[in-house]
């Protein structure tokens, strides 16, 4: 039980993510979480004005069910399968974040400085979440996939476009973390 309650090592977790991809392929579907965002646009009627959203979203219900499962999975994992152990971060990371004003690094999954209700009430806090969401939603559709679609499925099937996209993911991520985040905080 202790093995389940503690954080899982990368060499267990990585192959288990591949199992998710394999199961969906076995069911005749593809692993890609960002397509749900497009489906939701379509459900809300975006197809009336934009042809990109004009498709039969009912064919995508299975993928929305995966999302629903993921939410439930997140709940189960935190409520029943976790102890209160901290994320085992590099001490350098913790010091760096402390200097930027982040307290209790690793005690939660996301920093309170960005996600707590107090952070939300400040214009800056709200803006950061909205901006981040916009970039993720816009970028992932522009690139035709996200981490699951390109990094896992695309690279596993040795596709060149996915390699280019993943290089893009890292260019953006490296610039944000190393140069922009220190300016924001």
């Amino acid at each position: 039980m202790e093995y389940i309650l503690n954080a899982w090592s990368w060499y267990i977790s990585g192959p288990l993510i591949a199992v998710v991809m394999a199961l969906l392929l076995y069911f005749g579907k593809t692993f890609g979480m960002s397509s749900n965002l497009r489906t939701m646009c379509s459900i809300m009627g975006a197809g009336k004005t934009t042809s990109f959203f004009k498709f039969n979203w009912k064919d995508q219900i299975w993928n929305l069910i995966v999302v629903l499962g993921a939410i439930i999975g997140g709940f189960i994992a935190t409520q029943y399968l976790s102890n209160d152990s901290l994320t085992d971060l590099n001490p350098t990371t913790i010091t760096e974040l402390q200097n930027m004003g982040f307290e209790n690094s690793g005690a939660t999954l996301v920093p309170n400085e960005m996600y707590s209700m107090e952070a939300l009430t400040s214009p800056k806090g709200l803006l950061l979440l909205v901006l981040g969401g916009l970039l993720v939603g816009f970028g992932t559709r522009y690139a035709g996939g996200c981490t699951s679609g390109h990094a896992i499925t695309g690279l596993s099937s040795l596709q060149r476009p996915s390699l280019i996209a993943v290089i893009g993911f890292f260019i953006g991520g490296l610039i944000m973390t190393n140069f922009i985040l220190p300016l924001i905080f």
Partner: protein
Amino acid sequence: MKYLKFLLVGIFFGIVLVKSEAVSWYRIYEMFRFQSFHMYGIIGTAIASGILFLQISKRGTIKSLKGADIFVPKKEKGFSRYIIGGTLFGFGWALIGACPGPMYILLGTGVYSMVIVIAAAILGTYIYGAIKDKLPH
């Protein structure tokens, strides 16, 4: 009933991503600062296992539930969309510390402000759809 298997896969996915800490904002930060091998290990072993699975299934030994060949759709050819779109996605990924899967999973763990991120991501997707013909692909 035909959706039950998808619900179970989703639950499994959510549990794995929480227990692996791949949904942790801090792990994403650490990855982009090259201060930990953890995320690289997860992504690397996921891809290695994925390649192994797809190579074996290519030989026809693994069929889908309906008996068809295991099939991964081909991505369109191109460069601009992948590098520009990918970079913009990377900005967002590193800022909020979550990509589309973890956004939902984190909501399940009780990070309710994630609703704002998800709503913004839907809006971002809509903006792409509205202006896509004007963008280089």
